[in-house]
């Protein structure tokens, strides 16, 4: 074998080993989800789900943001967690893995409360069940397809204001009675109603893998958003900028080592996408213009990129924590020390 062929063979071995390792990591990953970032048990969500959000608790708790802001600011937080742990045996920072929020009626006035919350982690079921039964008054329970569903404030007609149930040892579901019962029934029958929601599944497949937080939804998620924003003349003037309607929205983000946010919006067509991208770029340019007065805005503006791909608009932001700190309002001067002159 010639020297050149040896080099090519060596390169092939490196690439093949890398590809094998990558494939192994892909198929042996214990956190491998069923669809996009969703675990198999979340596929029991109702087929009519219009939006889903997720938060990776492990990544969130390990992030500098949590360490910096949440943990440092609230002095009584450990006490609240201690009480929760005493009652339920649950330490959210340690025991929870993922939280998913799904719903169907985000944009309908008066029906924003139909969200269904799915929490995965490690629960002491007996302790949690006892806490649910004893800590609140008006808690009743019923058996739905072999699963105990706890109802809150059940009336004479058998309707509760809310419900919660364990889908399995590691999955707790909370929400309205109807949606919880629907999910429990689907899970008991081994059905995956969410698989029938092709548009939502397509959006879920587009979620950036391994994100700390993410959200996908169709236009109902955005129906409460303003249709227009004040123009350069400010509020109250006749000038305003019409915002193109979005058909869907995908948001993914990470918090380590900096705040990373990727937003993808699907507009009606390519011109609408370009229009929306121009609006976002306009705001970024305005921030850049303010850089003389606030130099930190220059950094913020350069951390944001806006691109269009056919009818889609991508906004990517990578904001270091130093920039976030610099954007915080300056704290009021602390009290003068007692010995100050």
């Amino acid at each position, binding site marked *: 074998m010639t020297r050149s062929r040896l080099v090519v063979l060596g390169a092939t071995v490196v690439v093949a080993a890398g590809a094998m390792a990558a494939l192994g990591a892909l198929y042996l*990953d214990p956190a491998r989800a069923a669809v996009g970032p969703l675990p198999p048990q979340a596929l029991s969500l109702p087929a009519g789900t219009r939006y889903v959000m997720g938060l990776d608790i492990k990544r969130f708790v390990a992030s500098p943001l949590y360490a910096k802001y949440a943990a440092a600011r609230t002095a009584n937080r450990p006490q609240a967690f201690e009480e929760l742990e005493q009652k339920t045996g649950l330490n959210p920072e340690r025991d929870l893995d993922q939280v998913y929020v799904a719903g169907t009626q985000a944009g309908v006035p008066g029906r924003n409360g139909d969200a269904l919350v799915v929490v995965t982690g490690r629960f002491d079921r007996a302790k949690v069940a006892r806490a649910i039964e004893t800590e609140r008054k008006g808690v009743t329970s019923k058996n739905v397809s072999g699963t105990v569903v706890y109802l809150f404030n059940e009336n004479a007609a058998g309707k509760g204001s809310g419900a919660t149930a364990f889908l399995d040892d590691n999955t707790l579901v909370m929400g309205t009675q109807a949606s919880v019962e629907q999910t429990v029934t689907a899970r008991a029958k081994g059905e995956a109603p969410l698989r029938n929601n092709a548009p939502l599944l397509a959006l879920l497949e587009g979620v950036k893998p391994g994100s700390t937080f993410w959200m996908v939804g169709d236009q109902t998620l955005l129906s409460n958003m303003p249709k227009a924003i004040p123009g350069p003349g400010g509020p109250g003037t006749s000038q305003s900028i019409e915002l193109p309607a979005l058909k869907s929205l995908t948001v993914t983000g990470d918090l380590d080592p900096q705040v990373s946010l990727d937003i993808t919006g699907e507009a009606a067509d390519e011109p609408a996408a370009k229009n929306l991208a121009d609006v976002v770029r306009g705001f970024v340019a305005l921030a850049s213009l303010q850089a003389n007065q606030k130099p930190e805005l220059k950094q913020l503006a350069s951390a944001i990129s806006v691109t269009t791909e056919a009818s889609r608009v991508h906004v990517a932001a*990578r904001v270091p924590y130093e920039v976030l700190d610099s954007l915080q309002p300056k704290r009021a001067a602390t009290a003068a020390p007692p010995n100050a002159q």
Partner: protein
Amino acid sequence: MSATAPRLTPDSPPPSAPADGRDVTRPVPFLRAVKAVFDLSLEGMVWSRRSLLMVALLFGPALLAVAVRIALTRLPPRVGAFDLYGLMIAFVYVRNALPLAALFYGTALISDEVEGKTITYLLTRPSQRVSVLAGKFASYLVTTLAMALPAVVITFFVLNTIRGWSGIGALVPELFRDMGVIILTLVVYGAFFTLMGVLLRRPVIPGLLFLFVWELLANAPGYLPRFTITAYLRSLIHHHPPDEGLAEIFAQVLPTALCLEAVGGMIVVFLAGAAWIFSTREYVLDQ
């Protein structure tokens, strides 16, 4: 002085019949000729000063990734590991290093033989001229892929395992996508610079101007990016690092299907053009 310059035309007869009785009146089969040229070219291409430079260029990001990995244990991280990997793929490899590698190898495929006056030995063999070009292009591809793909794989694993192996499975599709785009980048730029190499006598300066002046149109508004190669390639990868200047204002991502069609079309057109010019060109060698 080139008073007695030999002319090598496409229908130049073989200089003499071999002593072993082989039939030299019929050309060598295409694939056999390609393989022979490939074997010959690969040895000269892999072990060359040019390859040393290209190894430094293509393995530079991998070394940088190792440095980042070592430094990250002591320094506060400013950029996420996957973002840094994306920056290396989009900016270092697809935008700069791979087109440069294609420029230096692609333009030299034929012009090195002409300048070294060794093209005589290739063109006087009983084989089709296209097989010479195909064999040389194949050796260029193997050489550059043997340098680029391991570097990318190493960069991927070195950077994305900084915080452990958990979650790397989710990034694997990006690795395979990036490897595919790197192959396409080397093929399409290689085809383009091969065409320039057979078309122009001094192709390196125009090639550099194309890469670092013309390709900037990819950041222009409207349909102008569609007249560049890099706009299609960068649209195929998912990494879009924040830009500044024109790119920040007008950045657009072209549809994947359009990109694949355009890149495929360019590869066919550039290679066919290079093959046609090389097959019909009359090479006059200085004495």
